[in-house]
Each structure stands twice: as C-alpha cells, then as structure tokens.
C-alpha cells in the first residue's frame, strides 16, 4: 500500500502526459476524465496512514506495510511510515484531495483555466510532499524535497500574471538556494555515515563539520518553512497561486521544512545544537511577531493568511528550537510540533480554501454554514478552547516549559503568538466581510472540499494526538477542563480581540494617529524584505554585469592584441622567407648556393686530406 501511495500518482501523471499522443479531442476528454479522477490517487496514502503500524516509540515497523525498500532505485530508496510521517501523511492526503477536488469537481465554466495541468502539478507536488514525510534515507528525502519544490513553482505561476511571475521567480531563486544548501548538508551527512534518516542526526553530531551541516540545514529548510528572514517568497507565492494550491502550499508544503529539521538536526551535538537552538528560537520569535505586524498592514486576504502562516511556522520553529536547546525536551517538543503542524495544516487549509468559498457561497443559507466554518477555522488557528488549536498550543506550551528568553519563560511568550493570530484573523475577517460576493452557485467540489477540510480540522488533530500517539513516546499533556487551562487558552485571544477592536474603533472614528501606517499593503509591500533585496540585487547585478562586460572587453582586447602581434610576427617570418625564396629563385643566386656548397665540400676534403696525411 505504501508503494501504491507513490505509484498511483506517478501512473496518473504518466497517463496524463502520454495522453498527449492522442488526437486533440480524445486528449481533451481523456485529460478531463483523469483530472476528475485525480483526488482518488490519495486513497492509498490515506489507507497507509490509517493502517501502518508503528512501534511503541513511534518508529516504523520494519518489514511491515509501513516500510518499503527499493534497493535498485537511485542509491536504494527506503520509505518508512513512523509516527510523524503517518500524521503528516494523513493531513497531506486530505489537503491534496481537497485541493484536487476543489480544482476539478466543478462545472467547466467555473473551473480554473488549464485546470487539468494544475491538477497534474498538484499530484506531482503530492508525491514529493509525502516523500519528504516518509523518506527513510537521505537521498530519497532530497529527491522528494526537490520534486516538490520545483513542481510548486508551476502552482505559483499558474495565473501567469505579472505578480505571479514575480512571485514564481523569487520562489525559484529561494528554492534553488535552499536546494543547494540542503544538498550540501545531505552530502556531508551521508559522507559522515548518515545515509539512513534514522542515523543521520547521530552521524551529523559525530561528523567533523557538525556546525556547518547544522547551519546548512537550518538555512535550507528554513527557506521552505518560511523562517524569518528567509520567508520572503511566502507572502508572494501563496497569494499568487490559485486558492486550492495555496491551501496545500501553506498547509502541507511548508511542513516539509519542519520535517527536515525534525529528521536531521541533531540534538546531542553539544554546542552546535544549542547554538542552533538559540538562533532558531531568536529568529522564530522575531518572525512570529514581526509577521503579525507586517500582515496587519496588508489588504489582500490571502497575503494576510500567508503572514499568518509565517507566524505560525515560527511558533513551531520556536517549539523545535526549545528541543535543541534542552535535549531532554526534544521528544516532547517534536511531538508537540507534529501535533501543532497537523492542526495548523488543516485549519490554514480550510481558511485558504474558504476564500473563494466565501465569495461563491457566502450569502443566504449556505452563507451561514460558510461563516460558521470560517470562524471555526479562524478560532482554531487562534487556539480557542475546544479547537484543535488549543490542543496544539497547549501541548507546545507544556513541551517548552523550562526554556526562557531574555529572562521571560518561553511558555509565557508563546501564547502571545495567539494574540497576534487573533489580530491577523480579525483583520482577515474584516477584509473577507467586505469582499465581493459573486453569484451563487450550486454546491460543487469547492464547497465540498472546504467542508471536508474544515471537518477534518476538528477531528484529525485529536486522532493524531490521542489515538495514534506512541505509547512509548514522551508523556503527552492533554488539555484538561480546569479553569486555568481554559483561561490560558482564552486570554491571548481576548487580548487580541480587545486590541483589534480598539484599533478598529479608532479607525472607524478616524482617530488613528497619522503616523500609524494604513493597512492597504502599501506601507510594507507583500514580501516585505524582498523589495529592498530585489532592488539591491538588481542594482548589484546590473553593476556587476557591467563590470564583467568591461572585464571581458578588456580581456578580449588583450587577446586580440596578442593574436594580432602573433600574426604580425608570423607574417614577418613568412614574408622574410618568401623574399629570400624570391631572391633564391634567380638562377645566379641558386647557382651561388650550389657553388658555395661545392666549395665547402672541396675545402673540407682538402682539410681532411692534409690532416689525414693521405694523398691520392
């Protein structure tokens, strides 16, 4: 079944490709049928996730249905479904299935342009994405990572608009940098003996280049996970993609960076781990709040959601960083990160998928359903009690107890992220409420998939956190119903609500101070840092290339001069020879030469005759 999880999408994409051989009309039909069938390819993945056994400590059972070894492929492909893989596989399958059905189960006139191609790309991304979760050897991991990264560029640029092109360009540049960093790190890891993912952290910490490898890993996966300041592509790419694609980008793909950290960064590498943890924690906290600040100033709902993703991923990063700083916490932080990731993936997926749903179904009876769903998802992201968000936040907070930043305990800082989320989501709700409503249409794949994800967002995190949680794993704190627990979950949200309402009231009355930037996406453009970066790069690029042009011109000039003088010299030589030859061609000259030769012979023989003493 594990093999089928990969084979099914491969076959589908192959079939879609090969249908290009058919005549035009047949090709169109075939592709339409296949696109409509595409959500089915996740079924083996779901089954695998549900049925694959894990051992008591969360590892995959060797020789079981949750492990697969293909020794002839590449350098031996190893796949294993362990606890993190299983959990993430499930949400990935759900998200992708929803995205696919949102794209394909529509009336033709409602569908995206080129939706069959989009669905094929989604399927490819799916393969790569679940590959990163399930890979048990470094090469396979890299393969999946690269596959996903590059296929996603197609999602980003789908609309072909100017902004989509810009987003895709920046996305590709960042992806390539991340790929190279990851490649370098993995090469070093494997060289140190960490071919299998299980052995990788130990190998890294035993290697001579631990610091370097960890740095590369932080950077490489940081790009993918949207860690500040490497997040710049994210607020551009996620909004640029079609909503369904944004859902998987935000919900599943960014988790590939997280799983990379979890799989590879060693905790027992002493200083290296600690430094890495500190660095990660710093940037994570910075990102978690800065993203909120920047996000609040945006006006595009999808950009808002993207910044929310940056903030949420920073939250996860902070949790993981705690595990690096205090290795004892590691099992707990990892588990917490997984659960949080599951929750966030579904909730954020629901929000992204909800953007078009609101505009299409956001009135009348269906509007109520939609509103409920969206608010639910939003509350989940904010971490309101009873929601999966509360579960994730609670688990995380428990896991990081014992770490402090600048003297403030981390578990006291993290809830403030929820405040930020609340603010962002209020802004999101505000923007969405004013968003244009299009003509209503009959329930179709868009609505169904949104509903499915929203429902899954309620149930799945609990399954993952409770039913599947490995018995031998760290002790998992489940939020109880004590007042303090509930209060802990609620106060950040309330704080956010108060702040947000305050701002809104001020704004509504026009009392906002003049210096406060207006939230129209102009004060700080989406992608924040990327704007100056782009400018700098463009300038240096232009200057650099001009400099190189000059250099090249000079080297060409030198070369030409050298070649020219060489030509001159050879010309002189051959001209000299030619002149000599011309002179020699005259009979008298050549005769003189002959005479000289003969004279030399005679003279020589006279000398020999005299010295030899012999006579004729």
């Amino acid at each position, binding site marked *: 079944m594990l093999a089928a999880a990969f084979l099914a999408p491969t076959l589908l994409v192959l079939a879609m490709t090969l249908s290009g051989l058919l005549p035009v009309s047949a090709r169109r039909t075939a592709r339409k049928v296949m696109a409509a069938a595409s959500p089915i390819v996740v079924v083996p993945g779901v089954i695998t996730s549900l049925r694959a056994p894990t051992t008591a400590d969360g590892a995959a059972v060797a020789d079981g249905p949750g492990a697969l070894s293909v020794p002839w492929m590449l350098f031996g492909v190893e796949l294993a479904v362990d606890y993190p893989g299983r959990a993430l596989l499930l949400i990935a399958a759900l998200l992708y299935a929803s995205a696919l059905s949102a794209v394909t189960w529509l009336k033709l006139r409602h569908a995206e342009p080129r939706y069959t191609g989009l669905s094929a790309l989604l399927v490819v991304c799916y393969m790569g994405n679940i590959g990163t979760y399930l890979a048990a050897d470094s090469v396979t991991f890299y393969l999946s990572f690269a596959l996903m990264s590059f296929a996603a560029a197609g999602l980003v640029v789908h609309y072909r608009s100017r902004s989509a092109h810009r987003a895709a360009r920046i996305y590709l540049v960042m992806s390539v940098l991340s790929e190279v960093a990851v490649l370098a790190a993995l090469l070093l890891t494997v060289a140190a003996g960490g071919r299998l993912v299980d052995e990788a952290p130990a190998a890294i910490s035993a290697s001579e280049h631990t610091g370097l490898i960890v740095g590369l890993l932080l950077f490489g996966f940081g790009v993918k996970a949207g860690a500040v300041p490497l997040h710049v592509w994210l607020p551009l790419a996620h909004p640029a993609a079609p909503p369904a694609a944004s859902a998987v980008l935000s919900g599943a793909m960014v988790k590939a960076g997280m799983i990379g950290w979890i799989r590879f960064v060693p905790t027992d590498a002493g200083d290296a781990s600690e430094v890495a943890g500190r660095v990660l924690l710093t940037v994570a906290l910075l990102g978690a709040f800065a993203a909120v600040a920047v996000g609040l100033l945006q006006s595009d709902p999808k950009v808002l959601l993207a910044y929310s993703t940056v903030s949420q991923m920073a939250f996860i990063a902070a949790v993981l960083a705690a595990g690096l700083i205090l290795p004892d916490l590691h099992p707990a932080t990892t588990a917490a990160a997984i659960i949080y990731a599951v929750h966030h993936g579904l909730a954020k997926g629901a929000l992204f998928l909800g953007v078009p749903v609101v505009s299409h179904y956001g009135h009348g009876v269906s509007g109520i359903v939609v509103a409920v769903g969206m608010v639910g998802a939003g509350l989940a992201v904010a971490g309101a009690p009873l929601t999966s968000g509360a579960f994730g936040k609670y688990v995380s907070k428990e896991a990081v107890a014992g770490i402090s930043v600048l003297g403030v305990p981390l578990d006291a800082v993290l809830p403030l992220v929820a405040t930020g989320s609340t603010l962002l989501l209020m802004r999101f709700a505000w923007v969405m409420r004013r968003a244009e409503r299009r003509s209503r249409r009959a329930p179709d794949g868009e609505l169904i998939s949104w509903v499915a994800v929203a429902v899954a967002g309620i149930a799945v995190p609990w399954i993952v956190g409770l039913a599947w949680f490995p018995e031998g794993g760290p002790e998992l704190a489940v939020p109880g119903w004590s007042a303090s627990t509930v209060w802990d979950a609620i106060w950040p949200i309330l704080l956010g609500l108060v702040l947000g309402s305050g701002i809104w009231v001020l704004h509504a009355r026009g009392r906002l101070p003049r210096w406060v930037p207006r939230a129209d996406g102009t004060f700080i453009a989406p992608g924040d840092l990327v704007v100056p970066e782009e400018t700098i790069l463009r300038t240096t690029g232009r200057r650099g290339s001009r400099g190189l042009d000059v250099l090249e011109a000079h080297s060409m000039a030198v070369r030409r001069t050298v070649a020219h003088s060489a030509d001159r010299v050879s010309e002189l030589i051959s001209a000299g020879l030619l002149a000599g030859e011309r002179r020699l061609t005259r009979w008298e000259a050549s005769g003189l030469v002959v005479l000289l030769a003969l004279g030399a012979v005679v003279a020589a023989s006279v000398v020999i005759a005299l010295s030899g*003493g012999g006579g004729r």
Partner: protein
Amino acid sequence: MSLTQSALGALVLLPLLVAAVTAVLPHTPRRTLGVGTALVLPVLLAPVLWSTAVDGDVVDLALGGYEPPLGIRLRADGLSAAFLTLSVVVGTAITAYAAVLPHSTGRRIVSPPTMQPEGPAGPGGGAQPEPAEQAAPADRPGVWRPGHPSFWPLWLACWSGLNAVFLSGDLFNTYVGLELVGMTAVALVALGGRSSWQAALRYLFVAVLGSLLLLIGIGLLVSITGTLDVLQAGAVLADAPEETRPAAVLALCLITVGMCLKVALVPFHTWLIPAHAGAPSAVSPLLSALVIKAPVFVLLRVWLWVVPAGEDLAVLTVVLSVMGAAAVVGGSVLALRQTHLKPLIAYSTVAQVGYWFLFAAMVGGSSSGSPEGLPGVDITEDDVVSSALVGTVAMALGHGLAKAAMFLAAGFLKDLYGTDEMDRLRGVGQHHPGLVMAMGLSAVGLAGLPISLSFSGKWMLTTSAVAAGHYWAVVVIVIGTILSAAYLVRAIAPLLVESEDEGTAVEVPEWQLEHASVLTQLPPLVLGLLTIVAGFGGALLGDLLTVGAPW
C-alpha cells in the same frame, strides 16, 4: 635463371623495350602498349616481392651472365623491393590516369591549315569538341592542343630507368639508370608547353651537374675499391687502409651534393617548383612521387651500404640534417604562402624532402642526451639507424603515394577549370566528391597523420630520434606536421566552400563536367586509399628492410 630472376630483368627491360617500340608507332597504339606494360609490371613485381618479403631472400641477377666488376648486375634486397613496389604501384596508377585522360599528358602545337594530321581520335584530341578551334582565327597558323603523344615513350623509358636505379646492384648501373630518369624527366616537363620550357631547361642543368658530381664520386670509389658492385665496394671500404678514407669521404660528399641537387634539398630546391608545378598533369605526380625518389635511393645505398660510417662524417651529417630541418620548416611556410594549388603541392614536396634528411642525424650517431641506460630502454646504435631507415623509407613511400594522388587531383582540376588558383577554384569540390576525398586522404598521408604510411614513418623516425637523443628532430617533425596540416587544409578547404562572391567562381561547360567521369577520379582515389591502408604495413616494411640490410 629462375622465374624470379627473369621477372627482375623484365622489370627493367620490358618498359625500355616498349618505350623504343612506341617511339616509332602512331599514337593510339602507344597508349595501348603503355597500358599493357602497366598491366604486366605488377605481375612481374609479385614474384620479386614474394621472395624478398616472404622468403627473405635477396634476388640476384647478372644480366647476360657477366659477373662483377664489369657485368650489369641487378639485385633486389629489401630496400629495392620497397622502392620498386612504389614505382610499380604509382606508375601503374598514373599510366591508367594518362590513358583515361589523354589531355593530361601535355600540350602540343598543331597547325590548323593541315587540319589535324593525326586525326581527331589521336590521344591528344580525345573525343571532346574543341571550342578553341573556333576561337582561333584562321590566320593564326599554330594552335595549342591538349595531349602529347610523346608522353608514352618518355614515360616508359623513365619507368625503366627508375626500376633500374632501384634494382641495380652496381654503381654504374645506378648512374645510367639515373641519367635515363633525369633525361626523360626533363623531356616530360617540357611536354607542358611553352610555359614549362624554361623550367625544363633549368631542371636539365641541375640534373646534369648532379649527375656529373655522382659520376666523379663513383669514379673515385672505383679507383679506391676497384669494383662497381655495391656490396663488394662496401666490403673493400670497410677493410680499407686509413689513407684511402679521405678519398672515400670526398666521394661521399660529392655524391651527396649531387644527389641533393637532384632531390631538391633546401637550398637547392628552386628548380623544383617551376618544374613540378609547370609539368603536365600526368607528369607532375611522376616527378614528385617517383623521380626524386631515385636520388634518395642512391643516397641511402651509398651512405649505408658503400661508405662505412665514421667520426669524420659528423659535420656532414649535421649539415645535412640541418638542411633537412630547414627544408621541413621553410618549405612548409612557403607552401602556406602559395596562391596556386600546384606550386603549393610542389613546396610540400620540398618540405617532405627535408624529413628524409633528418635521417642523416641518426646515422651521425647519438647525442649526449640519449636516453640509453634509462629504465626499460635498451637501444643500440644499430637499432637507431635501422628504425630511422624504416622511418625514412616509410615516409618516402608514403610521400610517393600521397603526392601522386595529390598532384593527380590538382592537375585534374587545373585541366578542367583552366586554372589552379585556389581562390578561383572555390566550391568546385562539390562536383567531384571522389576527387576531394582522394585529396583528403592524401593530405592525411602528407601531413603524416594516423593512419597512413607517413605516420608510421614519422613514428619510427621520432622514436629513433628520441633514442639517439636528437630531441630537436622531434620538434622539427612536430612543427612540420602542424604546418603541413595547415597548408593542406588551406589547399582543400576552399574546394568545399561555395564562393562568397559569385563573380570569381569559375564556370565549367557541361560537357567538360561529363567528361570528368568517375573513371578519371579512380586513380587518385586508389592512391589515396593506399596511403591510408599502407599505414598498417609498417611492421611488414620493417621486416622487409632487414632483408639484405648492411647490419
């Protein structure tokens, strides 16, 4: 007299006889007889080659039964067999070419008032219409026509002379053969019409001077040794008393200078360019491929078989090899500067001659830098000389094959298009793929690139140069190879490129193109292929040359 021996005699006498007969025959039978001879000679060659190459015997024949010192003695050892093979192969190919394309044999004047005294089907007349006739006004009595019937007797006599030189066992014979070759060669050059007469005369003077020097040298040797026989003279000189040595050296010097004149070693090469370039298309290849091989052969004989090596020859060997090096480099550079095809090829001959004289350095012995005694090296003096000999002979033979093909092709183009200026011949190669292919193959041979006989020769020569410590020779060979590749590309590449400027392109009447049938392209192509194929015969040649070798 065994079959082989009679074949030996016939190789010399048959062409001579046929030459005498053709001289008194009308023109068409001359051609037939010539072709017949060319068909017979390979058959005669076979037994000779068999007994030298396979059985390893030296074939000996005293003509008319007279023994040395007076008798005419033919002897075929390995060296003879090698050169003889060249003579027969190239000779046959050129005969075929001349027979197929009679107008390649020269130009003659006929008088229109008495309208074609030999009839239109004469060997020169061919079957083609003659537009020149219309062009020539009636009041101009003399008209140049392509084709010259005298080619046949002259060429056959020349062939006989060549074989005589290669087969002669005594110096007298060598001299006579060489004279026969020289005389007929001069006459053959003169067949090229008005423009070639000056060149022929110049050639004549040089040839005579060279012959006289040879004659004096031979006389000196005879007066010392009392015999004309090569082997006997060599044996006598080897044991000769010290006081005869200067005379022997003087003889050697005279012969060497004489032969250098005839072979056109730089700086005695100036006669060669007009002679070879101006000769008719069927003659240039003969001159370049065969005629200058005769003096080379004589030199090899005298240096290796007759006069024993000694310290006192050191200066001479150095001078010769330096001249050789100068020829390689200078000839190649001058070839690069030519604008016409045939002079370019003639200069290439000058350059090639240089290679054969690098051999002198190897005969002169090893320099101090020789790698003897280094790990894995076990070279003796004899090895150096013998591999140098193999190399030189291989290069000479390779040159013979390749140059014959090259000159045939160039002459063909010149005849057809009326010019051999390379700029004007742009793109004409498109009409004659076989011809260009032949030129390409022979260019490989001339440049000494693998796989070709010249390459094998260069290899052996380089090896022995390195073994003898003459590293400079390697440099010369390398430079020569690069330059030769350069000028050959310069010669051939334009043929393949369409003319950029339509105005300069030469036009060829349709009938002439038709006339340039596949058959005419065959001889150069075969020779070109042989150049390449013979490259695999290096080892065979090495074995062959040990037959009757002086060591």
